[in-house]
């Protein structure tokens, strides 16, 4: 229905002048395509704004290239390369499973049998599967046996299969962990198969998939093992897989659940018993190496699985006791990996071209603009970032790349009909959404659930991310969101003639304060919602040491993120992880015991619940959200305080501030932040303007701010459904100015930047970007203040 024939990604988001950036392109159809490096200035096509603005850049990579299709081989699994020990004649396979889609709709994108433990390809080999009917199935070459009992979804089952080559007898076990009163028994099934197992050279042993076959097409080199395309991707958890080279009795299988054992003076073999130690081919323990891309084999041959496409780990196993939620403290209860058929860690495409970014290149938003003579088009965004110590400006825009990754390739409008309840109108989709709805192999966002309905908590940047594109309106607002919305601000900086650098979330995460301290002011994006701990530490250190922060949006500093250390060798910030825990506005909710990150082992969820209120970073924090239309601000009496009045110079006291804009039609909209001294706003924070009372019923208080479901939480009723424009001083001549609305930057380009939002932001930026400390506050402003000091005006009235 829709054809996006050009897609691509770069090997990095940020590149230093003098360094090289590589581009990977899928050109599915056209023989040739053209590349033009462009500087991105404005990406919103709304006719009421300045429109798309980009500048061609002379680059040695500009020109025509041969097109070729490149495929993403998504779906997670583990594999061991073919070897003699895996080429068994007799065997026993066993594992615990918690399947999420044992039976799929015939039109489901990957309908068919799912591999659990396999060394099987095209009717040759052996393997344990869930078949198309949702039943456990043992395959030996082209023959199969099944229990005929459908596997219950979202429940633990112990499954095992044995085969004795001498007798030709195969036995299959399926033992549900929970037996409901009306469940039929599932007795073991034994059958004489009488096959000699055929082994195909090169077919790997796989967990959670099976080998679809070797493919000589060059693009199949992107699969793992290279050139071997995997099939039958399994959705669900697998715990404690074991492979033995003889048919074990049921009693031996029970003993084998214990797995391989560590050697001691009194136990000089690897098995739970001496005889079993001689039978073990592999005994995998997924609780070992949770923060790696390796499935550890504790058996004698150390056949560690390469874990492909980053499935979710630190998942509760079949033996989870509920006493300990941190996998580091109870690893043996976290022996499960949750595999998904739409996991993707790295597209692993070939490089099509690269750009050696000349020394002296200005630090800005750039993109490789790809076009064909048939009208195909795609943009691959990237940023030129100066090395620490080689800053080009006094102003830095901190590109919220973690947030871009969190929203990468989201499917909400498509998957969740309920998204319409959230936005109070019919979602509008674009080519990108339509393409992704068909191409699930491009992976989803951290807002999505996987194709099996489980929460998606890992996002890679090594894949085309079609939501980080110009000319893209997001269904949430019928307007730009994240990347294209941040270009509203970039347009304004350019139009006003400011010199600025671009630095990325990952730079602040890896370089800390060094990345920030040489700038006079840091400007955020419109929605820096997702942040790592090192990044927040750096921002706090910066503002405490006299740095100035302009917080240009809302719903920031909200979710805990970490970069997965197993991918650090591929560059900075390749995969970001987040868990949606007990509270916060969530599109999915983590299951009990699954709150800790698999990468860093830290507790996930909201920063608020780790003792870091959102309001502590820049002075305001999220109060509410609504996605129908935006409103505007009015000044408060506090705006006349000399500590903040300078920001409102040129704006009349009664003026409507921001009753125009390209996001919702006003500056105050979508997600809104307020001052709350009980939640971390400094007690000396001033509120210069607010949008109180003007929002629709579509705006609702965030759920972490109330304990009971209750009425009166919408924009027409609740006093905290508003946006506060706020300022506070930080020590050593620093300060934070918070504009507190995601829609805010959408007003900057209005009337080519000639408007009162522009005046306000210009006043702040001019003051914040000057060398030296900010002017000191009046002496009488230095007083003792409590967090709760306040006497309600209505309490003073008596009627």
């Amino acid at each position, binding site marked *: 229905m829709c054809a996006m024939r050009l897609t691509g990604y770069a090997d990095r988001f940020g590149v230093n002048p003098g360094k090289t950036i590589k581009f990977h392109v899928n050109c599915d159809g056209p023989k040739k395509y053209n590349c033009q490096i462009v500087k991105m200035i404005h990406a919103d096509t709304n006719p009421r704004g300045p429109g798309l603005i980009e500048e061609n850049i002379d680059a040695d990579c500009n020109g025509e290239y041969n097109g070729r299709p490149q495929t993403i081989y998504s779906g997670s699994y583990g594999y061991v390369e073919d070897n003699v020990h895996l080429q068994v004649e007799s065997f026993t396979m066993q594992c615990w499973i918690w399947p999420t889609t044992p039976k799929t709709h015939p039109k489901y994108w990957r309908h068919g049998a799912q591999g659990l433990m396999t060394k099987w390809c095209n009717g040759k080999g052996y393997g344990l599967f869930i078949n198309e009917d949702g039943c456990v199935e043992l395959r030996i070459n082209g023959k199969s046996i099944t229990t005929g009992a459908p596997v219950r979804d979202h429940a633990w089952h112990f499954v095992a299969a044995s085969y004795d080559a001498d007798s030709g007898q195969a036995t299959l076990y399926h033992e549900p962990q929970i037996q409901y009163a009306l469940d039929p028994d599932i007795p073991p099934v034994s059958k004489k198969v009488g096959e000699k197992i055929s082994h195909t050279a090169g077919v790997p042993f796989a967990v959670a998939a099976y080998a679809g076959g070797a493919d000589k097409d060059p693009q199949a080199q992107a699969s793992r093992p290279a050139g071997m395309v995997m099939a039958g991707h399994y959705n669900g958890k697998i715990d404690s897989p074991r492979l033995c080279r003889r048919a074990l009795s049921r009693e031996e299988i029970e003993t084998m659940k214990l797995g391989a054992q560590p050697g001691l003076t009194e136990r000089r073999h690897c098995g739970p018993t001496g005889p079993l130690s001689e039978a073990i081919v592999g005994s995998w323990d997924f609780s070992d190496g949770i923060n790696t891309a390796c499935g550890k084999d504790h058996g004698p041959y150390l056949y560690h699985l390469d874990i492909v496409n980053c499935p979710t780990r630190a998942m509760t196993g079949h033996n989870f006791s509920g006493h300990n939620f941190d996998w580091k403290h109870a690893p043996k209860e976290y022996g499960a990996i949750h595999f998904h058929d739409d996991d993707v860690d790295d597209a692993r495409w070939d490089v099509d071209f690269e750009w050696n970014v000349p020394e002296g290149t200005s630090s800005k938003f750039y993109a490789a603009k790809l076009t064909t003579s048939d009208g195909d088009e795609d943009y691959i965004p990237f940023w030129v970032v100066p090395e620490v110590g080689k800053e080009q400006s006094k102003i830095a825009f901190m590109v919220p790349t973690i947030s871009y990754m969190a929203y990468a390739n989201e499917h909400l409008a498509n998957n969740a009909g309920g998204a319409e309840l959230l936005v109070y109108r019919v979602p509008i989709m674009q080519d990108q959404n339509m393409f992704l709805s068909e191409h699930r192999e491009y992976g989803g966002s951290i807002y999505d659930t996987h194709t099996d309905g489980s929460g998606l908590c890992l996002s890679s940047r090594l894949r085309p991310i079609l939501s980080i594109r110009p000319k893209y309106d997001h269904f949430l607002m019928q307007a730009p969101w994240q990347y294209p919305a941040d270009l509203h601000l970039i347009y304004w900086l350019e139009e006003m003639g400011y010199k600025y650098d671009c630095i990325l979330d990952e730079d602040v995460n890896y370089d800390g304060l060094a990345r920030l301290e040489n700038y006079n002011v840091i400007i955020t994006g419109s929605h820096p919602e997702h942040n790592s701990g090192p990044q927040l530490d750096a921002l706090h250190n910066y503002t405490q040491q006299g740095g100035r922060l302009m917080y240009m949006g809302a719903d920031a500093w909200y979710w805990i993120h970490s970069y997965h250390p197993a991918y650090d060798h591929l560059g900075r910030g390749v995969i970001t992880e987040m868990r949606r825990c007990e509270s916060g506005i969530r599109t999915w909710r983590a299951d009990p015991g699954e709150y800790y990150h698999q990468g860093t082992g830290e507790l996930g969820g909201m920063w608020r619940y780790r003792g870091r209120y959102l309001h502590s970073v820049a002075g305001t924090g999220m109060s509410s959200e609504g996605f129908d239309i935006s*409103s505007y601000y009015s000044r408060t009496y506090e705006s006349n305080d000399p500590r903040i009045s300078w920001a409102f110079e040129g704006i009349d006291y009664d003026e409507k501030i921001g009753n125009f804009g390209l996001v919702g039609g006003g500056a105050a909209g979508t997600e809104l932040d307020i001052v709350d001294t009980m939640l971390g706003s400094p007690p000396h924070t001033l509120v210069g303007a607010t949008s109180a009372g003007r929002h629709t019923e579509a705006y609702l208080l965030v759920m972490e701010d109330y304990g009971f479901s209750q009425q009166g939480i919408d924009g027409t009723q609740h006093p905290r459904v508003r946006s506060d424009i706020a300022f506070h001083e930080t020590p050593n001549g620093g300060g934070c100015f918070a504009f507190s609305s995601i829609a805010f930057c959408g007003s900057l380009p209005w009337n080519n930047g000639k408007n009162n939002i522009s005046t306000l932001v210009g006043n702040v930026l001019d003051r914040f970007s000057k060398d030296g400390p900010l002017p000191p506050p009046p002496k009488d402003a230095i007083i003792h203040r409590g967090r709760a000091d306040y006497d309600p005006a209505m309490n003073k009235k008596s009627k």
Partner: protein
Amino acid sequence: MISIPKKGTPERERLIATHKECIESMKGVPGCTIMKCETQGDTTVVSGGFQEDPLLNKVLIRMRTMMPGNFGGKLVVVCTKVEKEWRIARLSGIRGVPPEFVNDKVYDNEQDPQHDIFLMRLDQLDEEDGYPEHFNEGWKRRNDNWTVT
């Protein structure tokens, strides 16, 4: 649960007229709500619509709660040419299966198809839903016509 007004009733005609009036006033707004802009395309002063018509509000909520696969696919708008053309499509309700267009009608703005979807849904929805007589097994499996994100 709120009833969908029958065809030809004054209530239904009122809802349709109000919805149309609101949608017309929203043309030019980069966003949309079923309320009326005092000046078309300008959200400085908005009023009426779902906030002042409880029936319209609840009918809209019933429409919005539909599951992606309901009635052959929940209706959505698809922008087929940026800033120029829009069409109405149905979600498939099956992951990996893309939406399909419902007809050949092409709109020149993003608001009108939202009104047409309102009209289509008035015809789609049963007059009554959500009472004990409507119980089905889906109620036990969260497939109860009340979607969550």
